[in-house]
């Protein structure tokens, strides 16, 4: 059934693609401007600095134009090009396809947007970007963003994540992390064994944080959990907040232990802040 639906889904995904890519690019651009002035190396082809010629340098590395301006010879030195592979993952589960209000994005949409914007930044920075699920190609160069987006949207939830992560790669996980702590722990420790370091970003709907409901409500989980009847929701609001905080603290502790970063994001907040935080966290120390 999923196979039958795939072409249609791809179509739908393709229709979403340009605006998504554009939005991601735009957010990435604002973040780029935000970090401007930090001395970041450009692409490998980009100019880094001139240094005086020393014996042993290849003649081909001499920048003749620059050298012609002065008496000495200058070597054009480009940035060290050891591109890192960044693996990106976002939670494809059904619980992500939810929003509490009509004026909000679903968590999945926000996660896609953040992922692509981050990918855009990384591609501009010359890094390799790979998806954990679906297409296993590594994408490089700014022009690869649409292809990456296509691959992301085509990805199927049922696919097992590819755990053949290159060593010393960086991993970014975006999701709601509403599984029980042990499950998350298991997944995280399998990565940490590699060693892969990474970032976790929890994307949540505002309603999931504040529980703004009242009255007698039967809650249905989105992933086949048994329904849950709460007689008066307003009375359990503090309890819920406590429990959510505990859950988050658990993930954070776990992540810290594995050397990972953990941050949260709400869909009613602008994506820039979360993106900037991710981007800075990924930058070499």
């Amino acid at each position: 059934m999923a196979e039958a639906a795939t072409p249609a889904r791809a179509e739908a995904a393709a229709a979403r693609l340009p605006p998504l890519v554009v939005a991601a690019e735009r957010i990435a651009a604002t973040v780029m401007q935000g970090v401007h002035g930090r001395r970041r190396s450009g692409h490998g082809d980009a100019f880094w600095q001139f240094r005086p010629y020393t014996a042993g340098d290849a003649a081909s590395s001499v920048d003749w134009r620059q050298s012609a301006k002065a008496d000495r010879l200058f070597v054009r030195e480009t940035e060290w090009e050891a591109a890192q592979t960044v693996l990106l993952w976002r939670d494809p589960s059904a619980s992500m396809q939810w929003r509490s209000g009509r004026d909000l994005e679903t968590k999945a949409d926000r996660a896609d947007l953040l992922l692509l914007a981050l990918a855009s930044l990384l591609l501009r920075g010359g890094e390799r970007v790979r998806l954990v699920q679906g297409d296993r190609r590594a994408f490089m160069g700014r022009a690869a963003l649409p292809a990456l987006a296509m691959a992301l949207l085509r990805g199927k939830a049922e696919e097992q994540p590819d755990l053949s992560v290159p060593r010393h790669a960086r991993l970014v996980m975006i999701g709601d992390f509403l599984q029980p702590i042990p499950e998350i722990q298991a997944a995280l420790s399998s990565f940490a064994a590699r060693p892969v370091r990474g970032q976790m970003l929890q994307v949540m709907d505002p309603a999931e944080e504040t529980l703004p409901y009242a009255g007698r409500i039967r809650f249905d989980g989105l992933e086949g959990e048994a329904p849950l009847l709460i007689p008066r929701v307003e009375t359990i609001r503090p309890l819920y907040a406590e429990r959510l905080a505990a859950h988050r603290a658990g993930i954070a502790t776990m992540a810290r232990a594995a050397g990972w970063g953990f941050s949260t994001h709400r869909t009613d907040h602008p994506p820039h802040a979360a993106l900037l935080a991710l981007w800075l966290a990924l930058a070499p120390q």
Partner: protein
Amino acid sequence: MISFAAPWLLLALPALPLLWWLLRVTPPQPRRMDFPAAMLLRDLPLAEETPARTPWWVLLMRILAAALLILGLARPVLGPGGDAGGAGTLLLVVDDGWASGPDWPLRIAIAQAELDRAGREGRPAALLTTAPGEGAAPPRVIGPMPAGDLAPRLAALRPRAWPPERAAALAALEAWTRNEPGRFSALYLSDGLAHHDGVAAEALMARLGPNLTLARAEERPVRLLTPPRAEGDRLIATLRQSPVLLPGEANLIARAQDGRALARASFALGAGATEAQAVLELPTEIRNRVHRLDLAEENGPGAVVLLDERFRRRPVGLLPGAEQGADAPLIGDLFYLERALNPFAELRRGDVERLLARPISVLILADRPVADGPELAALTRFVQQGGLLIRFAGARLAERPDPLLPVQLRAERQLGGSLSWEQPQRLAPFPEGSPFAGLAVPAEVTVERQVLAEPSPRLAERVWARLADGTPLVTAETRGAGRIVLFHVTATAEWSDLPLSGLFVQMLRRLVALSGGVAGTEGEAMLAPLEALDGFGRAVPPPPGAQPLPAAGEVVISARHPPGWYGTAGGEGYRRAVNLGETLPAPTLHAQPPAGTTLRTIATIPAERDLGPWLLAAALLILAADLLVSLRLRGLLLPARAAALALLLVSTPAFAQEQDGQSALVTRLGYVLTGDAALDETVRQGLVGLSDFVNRRTAATLAEPMSVTPGRDDLSFYPLLYFAVRPDAPALDPAATAALNGFMRNGGIILFDTRDEGSGEGFAPGARQALRRVTQGLAIPPLMPVPEEHVLRRAFYLLAELPGRFAGGTVWVSREQDRANDSVSPVVIGGHDWAGAWAVDARGQNLHAAVPGGARQRILAYRFGANLVMYALTGNYKGDQVHVPAILERLGN
């Protein structure tokens, strides 16, 4: 007192506690909600361990709703009517004659209540109406049948405009009791009158006993208005009524044919009085327009009197001494008479034979002797039969007196003049008892010549007017049913100044008012019913059973001859009014019912109310409230939705403002709604035509014009407003005035069009006053006629004149050069009906002819419109053309 139509349903009431229990144990349905973080909610220790319970007040509300439902379905009846006791068939006897009209709904309501009760008790019912039906069908007992089947027949009953036939009803009752020998109890709704057959009423009541309930309107008199009597300027109406204990009052209204009230008078009726009179003082012209008299508070045919020609037309025949020169200005015999009589009487001319061939009420002989023979005989017969013969003296009459004079004539005398010592005589005040009594005698009226009367013992009582020296000026004598009146002077100014004075007119008017009306064509011709009065006194088409009436003779009002109009068809045809009050006897009460009869009073609608629907409605309301409450409890009712619901319930349609959006998008012309749909349509078509012309000929692009109401619509989108001024336009309200002032201040132009200038003079009389009214609060600057060099004349076309549908009037613009507004005049005022000239229909054809006309005028009108639009859009931009010569000159230098 409450009774139930379906009492067994009340057995459901003990089940209410069960419902209470059920509702208690059943918590409200939870609201369903998808929630990804449901995992976190699991196993939360619930702070409140009380089970989810419906709040007690919701329970109470639902129980109440259920109780109301049960009670409502049990059909409770409050104060059940009907106390006509007894068992067996219920026989309703209804007097549906003319006297039942005024309180008909009450009567039917009482009968209905009784019928409902019989229905509840399962008794059959029968109905007997005492008046013959349409087509004189004799009364008949309907039934017995189930009470529910009889109800629609009862509801369909209408009072008749003729009296009941109780004898026939009694016969019908006899026949019915022979066929239906069972017991019956009767309710007799009597109009209380004996009519012409008091014995039959008594017999009927006796036959209906012993279980008889008699319902009468004892406190309300039955009133019968009789045709009025004309006395001079006055109409004296007589009201007859059945005696009542309390004094009362009745108001009489005289109405014209179109229903307007012309005059009012009131009858004062003392306690126990059976008759009262009211006087309507009406000028003759108004009196001639009185079409019917009715009582303000009554609505039966007895309270209506239709007035036909007898009360109205006063044809006056004029006979001059000599046909030649009779109309000669200032000296003709009939010159003054015609002018004096024309406003209020119908004048006829011709010889004696022709005049008398048609009914005529007054005949005036101006200095015309009557020849012996057939002429004398005809005139004598005319007077004997009630005609009024007015004669004026003169040279011819003085020579040849004839028998048709009130007094013997002696001689002619001359007062004043060169050969006489005597002075011209003034008039003495009119004696009491004369029809002229009370008229003011002007001092300037003098009499120079007159014919003198032979003194006789009866002369004094025949004199209606005298000169100051006591000689008679007007004498009169009654002959048969008619009168002969003699003016001892001529009808010209030859002998006296009388015909020159206003007194002459007043005297003639009084004389004509004295005369009897014209009874119309006598003879065997049959008059067809034209319009009948129904049982409520309304004019309706005659019922199918109405039959023609002989023109002459008494009429007995019956189902065959209902009251109303009879006559020959056609506009000029003769119409005769047949009134109830003309022929019916004065209303008298019938005898008291036999002993043992239950009496009821028809005074108010019986208070029987079916409470069921109200209870059910209340239950529904409570259930609706319960729905809202439970939605609220489940959290489904967001405040916004609640507000929307509440708004839906109480919302009043607000004026849509959507047109603002449209009007802002494109340039278009606007016009102010005048309230006259035809005029608004013309203006709209005119602006459509103008917009089309401007679109074709200029670079401006105008969209469909829109109507605006200043003060309600935003005017800021319109460069130009067309304000057609209706002649009866009211002053603007403050909001509209403020809006228009703001519009003008911000550069808008208003074109005021009174549509009555130049060649259109008189097309819309009063529009200029209306313009003054309309512009009262507006900041109109000082005005001047559009000068030769004005931009309005050269904004697009060069125009020498500014015609519309009309031409030749003056068009005004602001005189002041207001720099703030680019010297553009905020108003253009004229009356050329430009919209009329521009107006085109859907096929693009012009709708209104231009006056004086010509294709050129229409073209110029359109050109003026184009100039005006350009002026409104570009202001004084084109005004620079005025300076072109100067600029050229400067450039040349």
